[in-house]
């Protein structure tokens, strides 16, 4: 899948979080750049993080190295989208 721009990436990240964490559509749709993720969202435990990362890899055809995964990347919806966009738009 080739992504034209960051809107598609944002939609993909939103879809992955909704699917992996089982979020209701309204809650997934309400996430903005500043919505906090890791540490703030009870569904996002370490196992769910693994699922989110692997599903992003599957869905966007990217590879995320373990040393790229840190608290900053997962801090907010916006930071995760920015990380994934940098990976998939290059």
């Amino acid at each position, binding site marked *: *899948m080739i992504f034209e721009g960051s809107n598609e990436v944002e939609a*993909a990240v939103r*879809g992955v979080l909704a*699917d*992996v*964490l*089982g979020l209701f559509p309204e809650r997934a749709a309400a996430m903005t750049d500043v919505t906090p993720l890791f540490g703030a969202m009870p*569904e996002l*435990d*370490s*196992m*769910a*993080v*693994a*699922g989110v*990362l*692997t*599903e992003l*890899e*599957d*869905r*966007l*055809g990217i590879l995320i190295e*373990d040393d790229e995964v840190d608290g900053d990347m997962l801090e907010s919806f916006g930071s995760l989208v920015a990380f994934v966009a940098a990976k998939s738009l290059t």
Partner: protein
Amino acid sequence: MTGHADNRLRIDSYDWRGGREAVLRFGPDHGPAVIVALPLLEEGNRTRSLAVSVLRLLTDRGIGGLLPDLPGTGESMTSTEEMRLANMQDAFAAAAATRPGVHGVAIRSGALIDRAATLAGRWHLSPQDGASLLREWRRIAGQGADAPSLAVAGNAVAPGLLEDLREAEPAKHNARTLRLANGAGRADGTLPGSPVWRHSEPRNDPVLAQAISDDIVRWILM
């Protein structure tokens, strides 16, 4: 899901070179049938109810189904620590041999298990190769690529299985590959629905189950 279909579900067993395992049999004993390979470990638990829904829908269309326990899964006496890929492949092949002409249906890493079986064809849903599975397990366990063994969601995984999986690939021979509509990767077709193997709470997806069974019916009868 009719009462009639329920009456045609039964628990049976099959023998393979390493012992005896249970197999759920759905639908008629003759005519077309599928045998299902679930993914390994946690994803297997998460996709089991989807697989059973699909098998019931296929029963309603006159297609029989087999859902075997494999050594290390379900009710098997083998612990997950003793799971080896070759044993699962051989057991799956033995279960398939109880129903000559059977078609294989594999979900995710289940596609690594159907290699040794004699099948009329292979139908793979979002197949996952061994390298990707290992990367995910290491992520879940929080361990690096050099860790000799892993504990994945409460299951101890033996070094031998990790070794088996390193270069394991889904069999490509006579295979039809389906993916979800929003997934990446090569596919012969896409299906609507959500990746139930990702959901931390097991749940079903009736839309996906219907789409899978429709595609399988067309594939078998074409």
